[in-house]
């Protein structure tokens, strides 16, 4: 037996797991989407009924809108904060401390983070309202609730973005900056025209990370708001969960999963396109 074939055998255990728990589920979603099924009952075939229901499900379109709004607010803020903070602390004595502090939320387990926010910002008996009387409206006002979930996500992730940008900053050659300064560029111009353009690949990478975060925000939603109030924070992933495992409509949940997978695919393709085009333009410039 050739070495290559022998080596290929070593991939078998991992591939078995991938096939059983990713590939088969992925390929079966479409079939499950034709079922009426509560999870415990025997599935009943209902043809395309679930797929037709997708088209006239107002909650689905609201949910898609919420997801897009979430992404359009969270991602640019995530990028801007990562960039601004990394630039602001570059070379300062506090750099290490700030990075460690901003990364710290990642060390608190997600359920624990939800508890921390609850203790602080709960409008009925949180610390904020006890100390200052300031009642945050995130349990009653839709916009505030979405802002709250976005703030929580940024709280968890910004440190990671800052670490990435900061690592890239270390890779900007000192000579390039020096040369610009000798040519009479102000610090602000050095940043604007030399440093930031060189960070483009990192920012592109963080854009992808940011999009994934938006698509995966369902955990934060589950922990903080359970989709409420009035469905205002019910992002797509959470709607799938809620339909399948709170309302026990797994057949329709499968149809929603199909829809969510389609959205993920479209976003991934669009993103790959934009990134390729951009880097091609950057290379020409």
């Amino acid at each position: 037996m050739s070495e290559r074939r022998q080596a290929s055998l070593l991939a078998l255990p991992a591939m078995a797991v991938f096939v059983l728990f990713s590939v088969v589920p992925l390929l079966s979603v479409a079939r499950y989407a034709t079922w009426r099924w509560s999870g415990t009952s025997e599935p009943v075939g209902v043809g395309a009924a679930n797929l037709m229901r997708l088209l006239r499900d107002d909650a689905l379109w609201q949910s898609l809108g919420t997801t897009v709004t979430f992404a359009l607010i969270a991602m640019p803020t995530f990028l801007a904060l990562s960039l601004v903070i990394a630039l602001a602390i570059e070379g300062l004595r506090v750099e290490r401390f700030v990075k460690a502090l901003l990364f710290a939320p990642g060390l608190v387990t997600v359920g624990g983070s939800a508890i921390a926010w609850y203790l602080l910002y709960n409008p009925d008996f949180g610390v904020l309202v006890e100390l200052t009387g300031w009642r945050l409206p995130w349990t009653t006002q839709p916009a505030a609730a979405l802002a709250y979930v976005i703030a929580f996500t940024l709280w968890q992730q910004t440190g990671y973005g800052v670490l990435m940008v900061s690592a890239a900053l270390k890779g900007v050659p000192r000579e390039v900056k020096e040369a610009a300064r000798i040519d009479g560029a102000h610090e602000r111009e050095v940043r604007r025209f030399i440093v930031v353009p060189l960070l483009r690949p990192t920012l592109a990478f963080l854009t992808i990370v940011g999009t994934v975060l938006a698509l995966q925000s369902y955990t934060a939603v589950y922990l903080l708001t359970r989709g409420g109030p009035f469905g205002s924070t019910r992002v797509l992933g959470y709607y799938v969960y809620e339909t399948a495992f709170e309302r026990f409509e797994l057949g329709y949940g499968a149809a929603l999963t199909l829809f969510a997978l389609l959205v993920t695919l479209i976003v991934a393709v669009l993103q790959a396109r934009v990134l390729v085009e951009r880097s091609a333009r950057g290379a020409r410039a």
Partner: protein
Amino acid sequence: MIVMRLITVLACVFVALPLVWLVYAAFIPAEALIAANIATFGVTLENFAALGDTGLWRAMGVSVLASGLAVTGQLAFGLGAAYAIRNGARLLGLVLLLMAIPSELLLVPLYRQLQTLSLIDTLGALIVPFLASPLVVFLLLQALRRVPWELIEAARLDGAGEGVIVARVVAPVLRPELVAAAVLAFAAHWNLVLYPRVMTTESLWTVQVFLTDLLRTRPFEWGLLGAAALVASAPILVLYVVFEKRIIATFEAGFRS
């Protein structure tokens, strides 16, 4: 620049507040809360002692066992898969595809699959589907690409089989990357929320499910909640502190390529 520094300071305060309060709440005496006087100073461990009756320790046991076994599998199987791909097996496309799909998006079809395999509400549900991770395969493959191939050729000339080479030659060389991947994978599994909530019932609750339930059933007990959150975070905290340098180095190296 002033505006940028101001933003940085505000961000630091915003990030620090919940953390500071969490630690503070975990150590304040219950009387301070009954008197509604949260400025009372004093440190106590009674909140941690009170965790004994809540079932936290059982949940910690389930989580440690499940995350530990899952990560062990991810490293062993991941190393095998990465080595096979490095040797020409055409599986990278599949790995990249699976990396793009968040696993919790597949809750519905996974539920059916676990039902078929009689894994629902078993410890296996928390472990078996997580015995391999596309991200770990990817990280280890990146690391393997930096290993000088003469090392493996030499072992082959000595007559070593491929399995032996992976275990005795490749694994020791990749130790730093294996450690880093293990910490990341452990944290990812430890932090699963919806998956264990859906696939198991109370006797197999993981730490995350336990915490969300505690928040629902005892929302007024700040001290207890804070203490539970700290205990639940301890394993991740310890792993990160011990292996900090390796994790960051591996992350940056994987990200460069």
